[in-house]
Structure formats: C-alpha cells, structure tokens
C-alpha cells in the first residue's frame, strides 16, 4: 500500500477521534453547566412537547432566521439542506449493502451539490456586500466558507466532470471502518476532497460549527415557559437558601 494511502488512513482515524472526543467534551460541558433562571424568549411554549416542536422548527426551518433576514435564510437553508442530502447520499460508501431507499435518492442527491454550492456562494457574497456583515466577519469566517466551497466543488467535479474509482474508494472506506486499511484510488480531486473533509472534521469542535450542537442547548429556545407553575432551582442557587 502506498504511503499516501497510509497517510489518509491515519488522517481519518485522527480526525474522527478529534471530532468525536471534541464534540463529546463540548456536549458534556453544555449538559453539565446549569441554567439557573428561566429565560425562554417569549412567547414560548408552555410544555416540553411544545418546546420540542419549537426546536424542530428552528433546526429544520430556521424559523428565527426566516423572521430576520430572507436572503440569509434562503442561502443558509439551501446550503444546509443541500449538504444534508449530499451526506445522506454519501452513506452508500459506508454500508456494504446499499438499501433501496438510499439508491432511490441518489439522483436527487446529485443536484443537491449545486444547491449547497450556490447557497455557500450567496452566504459568502453577503460577507462582502452587506456593510454590517462585512464588519463582523473574521478571517476564519471566510476560510470556513472557502473550505466548504472547496469540498462542494471538488465533490461536484467528481460527480459531474472526472469520475473516480468508486469501487476502490468504497473498499478504502469500509477498510477504515473494519480497522484494516486498504489502498485509496489515485485521484487528485478525491485527495483534495478528503483532505478538506478531514480538516472540517478536525476544526468542528473548536470552531463556530459548535452552533450545531449549541442550538439544542440554548436556554432561550429549549426552556418551557412555566416559571409560575414550577419551581426551577439550580444546585448552586439552592445553596443560597441554606
């Protein structure tokens, strides 16, 4: 097996480890830090079912963003749901027997790449065109968009322009999963794609991509509006009563 294949195998093990451990640590931190006061942004649902429904609307429809900025919403939603479809389509590399439904969505997934890339383009354009967004953009905001665009464009290249050897790739991926690394197809575009994907995985838990787990822990969105009905007391606050 080539050094390059070994390098990529190691890279993906390291990236996965950093992603999983990093995310787990962050999620544990969010779970453990107390929310001493009731601070849902009202009007808020009064029951936990209502809260689940509100959260679902935020995560699936980006409801609050829809209220604030239609352009950001359109581009943001295109990007995220394009990406989601793409990722689902990618599952075919990770299972040995591809189930029927996964096969069925393959043709749609293809065009999701265009949606994702267009959405990213729109979001990036805002960072230059809107003075307020330009003011708050840091170099890392630009790099993040560049990275995702890089992943999207390199992926789309393989889909629409120069196909890679999917069979060998699948053997490589399944090999990783079975802890017996196999050779990677020799394709520059694929290598670029994978290097960028690994980078994304590594920076995920140390960047603003924490918005993905973060939204579920946001007290203004995940608390029920019932402070008169229930006494809500954090441990550190209860100690003040002693």
């Amino acid at each position, binding site marked *: 097996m080539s050094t390059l294949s070994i390098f990529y195998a190691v890279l993906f093990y390291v990236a996965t480890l950093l992603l999983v451990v990093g995310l787990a640590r*962050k999620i544990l*931190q*969010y779970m453990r*830090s*107390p*929310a*001493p*006061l*009731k*601070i849902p*942004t*009202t*009007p*808020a*649902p*009064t029951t936990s079912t209502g809260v689940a429904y509100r959260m679902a609307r*935020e995560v699936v429809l*980006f409801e*609050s*963003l829809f*209220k*604030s*900025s239609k352009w*950001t919403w359109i581009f*943001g939603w295109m990007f995220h749901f394009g990406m989601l479809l793409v990722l689902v389509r990618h599952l075919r590399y990770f299972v040995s027997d591809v189930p029927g439904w996964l096969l069925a969505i393959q043709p749609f997934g293809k065009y999701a790449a265009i949606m994702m890339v267009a959405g990213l383009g729109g979001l990036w354009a805002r960072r230059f065109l*809107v*003075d*307020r*967004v330009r*003011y*708050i953009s*840091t*170099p*890392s*905001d630009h*790099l993040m968009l560049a990275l995702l665009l890089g992943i999207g464009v390199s992926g789309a290249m393989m889909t629409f322009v120069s196909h890679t050897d999917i069979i060998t790739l699948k053997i490589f991926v399944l090999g990783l999963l079975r802890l017996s690394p196999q050779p990677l197809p020799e394709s520059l575009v694929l290598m670029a794609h994978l290097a960028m994907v690994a980078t994304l995985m590594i920076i995920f838990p*140390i*960047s*603003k991509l*924490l*918005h993905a787990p*973060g*939204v579920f*822990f*946001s*007290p*203004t*969105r995940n608390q029920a*509006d019932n*402070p*008169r*009905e*229930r*006494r*809500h*007391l954090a441990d*550190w*606050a*209860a100690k*003040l009563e002693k």
Partner: protein
Amino acid sequence: MAVREFEVAKLTGEIKVPALQEGTMAGIKGFIANEKIQEALGYPGELVEDWHDKAISKMGELLGKYRSLQVFMDACVHCGACTDKCHYYLGTSDPKNMPVARQELMRQVYRRHFTFAGKYFPKLVGAKDLTKEILDDWYSYYYQCSECRRCSVYCPYGIDTAEITMAGREILDSVGMGQKYSNEILGKLQRIGNNLGLPGPAIINTLEGLEEDVLDDTGIPVKFPLDVKGAEVLLITPSADFFSEPHVESLIGYAKVFHAAGISWTMSSHAAEAGNFGLFIGSYENTRKAAMRIRDAALELGVKRIVVGECGHAWRVAYSFWNTMIGVGDGADDEFGKKLQDQLDHSYPQPAHICEVTHDLLTRGVIKVDKSKNDDRVITFHDSCNVSRASRMGDTPGGQFTIPREVIKMVANNYQEMAPGTTHEATFCCGGGGGLLTDDLMEVRVKGAQPRMEAYKEVVDNNKVNFLALICAICKAQFTKVLPYYGYDMSMVGGVHQLVSTAIELPGLGEGPAEAEAAGDE
C-alpha cells in the same frame, strides 16, 4: 465628566437601517459608581490592581454557572441576522451597537482565554486579550444595551445579547467598575425597600394625600392601604407610582379597581418596590437579596395573593424569577418554597400582573366602566420589552400582548395599533430600559428611542393618536423625557391603568362593593 451636545434625528415615520459609521458612540459612558455605592453591593470600590486576572477568573466562574453564556459564546456563526435589530444601532449607526458586535466585545476575550483556536490562532478567529481599552469599551457598550432581548428573537440560536451584557456588567462590577445609576438605586432598594429611598412615613404621607385627591375628585373614599395584616392581596408596584407623573395615575387606577371589586388589599412599606435593578447588573445574589423583602413582607402580612403593578423588568423578575428566588409561585416541594406557597391561594396565578387582575374583573363584569369617558383619547399601546419577550400574562403564550390590549379596548373606544414589526415580540425598546434611565446617558436614550418614535409618528400622523399607553415605570419616565426631543408633548404618555381609572365606575357611597362577600372578612 461633561455630557456632550448631540443632534436629534428628524422623524420620517419610517424605520431605516443606517450605513454603519464607526465610533459615533465611542467613549459615551455613564458616571462610575463610587466606593460607598460599590461596597454596599459587595463589590470593590474602585478599579482593582489585578483587574485583568480578576476579570478573566470571573468570566470563567460565570461560564460555569450559566449555560446561556457558555453556549452563546460558542454558537454565534457571524451570520449577521441580528445586526439591524437593535434600536441602539438603528439610532446611532455605531457598529459596536450591533448585537453581534456587542457580544464580540466579550467573545474576543473568551476566545483568547478559553478556546484552543483563540489561544493558538488569535488573529484568525479575532481573539484578543483583555486590555484597559477593551475594558473601557465594555463599560461603554454594555451600558448602551437595554437588555431588551429583541436580538434574541431573531438569532437562529436564540443568542440573547442581554445575557452577555449582564455577564459583562457583573464582571465590570467585580473589578470595581460599577455604574452609579443602577448600583446606587439597587443599594437603596436593599437598604430601605424601594428605589427612591422613601422611608415609611413619606409613603404614608403620599398615600393619605392620594386618598384625599380621589375623594375630592370622585366623592368616593377609595383607600390606599399600607402594611395591613390579613389583607387578601399584597400589591407590589414600582415606587415611581407613589410620586412621579404620570405613574401615580395608574396607582390610582389600581386602587379604584380593588375598591370597585371589593378586594381587600395592601401595600408594604418594607417592600415598596416592584423594580429590581439586580437584574440589570446580572447579579443573581443581589437580585435575590432585593427580592427577599417581598417574600418577607408577604409572610409577615399573611396575604393570599401577590399582584404586581405596571413595570416591565419588574414583571420579568416577578413572573420568571420570583418562584426560583423567593418562592412566590406554585409547585415547590422544598421547605423554603412551601413555607410561602402553602399560604398563597393557588386558584389565582402567583404572582399576578395587575392587567391580569383587571382583565379578569372586567371580563366577569365584576367592575363596570363608562368607555366614553376616554373618548377624547386615541390610544396606541407600546409593548414593553421585558413583558413581551421575557414573560407572559394569562394561560396561553402571547397573553402578554392580548391582555393589556383587551383591557384598553374594554375601557376605551379609540384604539390604533402601531406598524407590525414594531409591536408584540418585535417591539422596540423605549430606549431607557436596562439601567440606562439616567441623564448622563441622555444621548443613548434619545437616539435609542428613535425607532419607536418613528412608529409612533406614523400613527400620530395617520390615525390622530394622542395617547401612548404603557405598562412600565421606566417606559413612562423615558417617554415623558424623550417625547419632547422629537417634538411631542409629554402629556401624551400614560399608563393602561390611567385609562382604567378614567373609565371605571365606582360603587357610590352607601352601596356595598360589587363583590361584598370577598371584601375585608378574609
């Protein structure tokens, strides 16, 4: 520190998003609290020598105590959705008044000290160590935020800049940089029992004066009871209601409502304040300490119900925090909570907003009104931020919008809504909330009021509105001061219960009150 001159924008009736102009509000800051004020709240009297380390360790402490702060520091993607949502940005064009930029003042330091990326790649992610300039920026811009939560409505992750402002102020306090206005008032509240520092005899005096005024006016002996043991209702209202115009008109309104409904009630000289500036400076301990007076008064007087007068942030503290902090509410299974909750009558919401009480009495026909008495008024209603976005009235979400409006419509004939996008959960702050209601911040207040004033102008011009109905002591004080800057008369401002007061029919002399069985004997 001299307060500089400034220009007031000419209203157009339309809210426009300005192009940003850096530094327009840089260095604008309220007076710093002196040693005496600071120490009364348990903070250092002046900037401590090791402020840098103290501030960072305080930040660490708060990150561990408040999930909101921890998640909000991490989650922002700089999407910009909040950038045009803050009335202080809209009114000043200063980019540091954009919610995300206000957060960034703290986030840059958070990144530097608490994240991997900020420690090793500070330039890349915009991380900076805390310098004296940044600390001064904090003091400036964390006191140009009214903690109104408008930004939190629009952020896709619900990031509430008010939480970050509160943390910022708490860190500033802990290194000795307190704000004179908020901290002095909070000290008075904790020491004397109300924001104005009124001693008991002064309150008695005022209330007796009010009884005479109302008797002269109506011929009916409406009482303003104080410290009456065994009363059914304890009314907790902002102390401004005792002295300031137009606040006092609403106090008269509450008294008439209780009188007409035959509900026995009392106020307390020990807890003669609904407001609680502990919220503004983000200090759990200080908020709780101030609120404890209300618990003590309720236990002492043996009341069955606690009702809160017209005040926005006070209603937030009462509705959202009282159950947690002092046990006013329902559902406690611990000794501390039960001690008070066993005494309260849980067939009523605890605590209840005065609008909930009046709404219920009007709907059930227990009190009667003559709507035509308000016919000289064309009324619009300004939703107070803390009521709209941090609390509720009634049983269903959004009751905080419908109940006060229904009360107005039940006591008056002419009502007009301001433009959508400036009311309900999208309401614009009056510009003076969150501890900014001080003359040394007049420029911030006047400019921050501009979006609300634009919406108001529109209904004044197009619908002949001449009365701005409010349910907040701060809104009342702010608008009476700020309206004249925009060319309106301050007499246009008043409380919802001022309207109730005008229209309510009081049972005549000799007649029993409407709900005789409910009176006195409980």
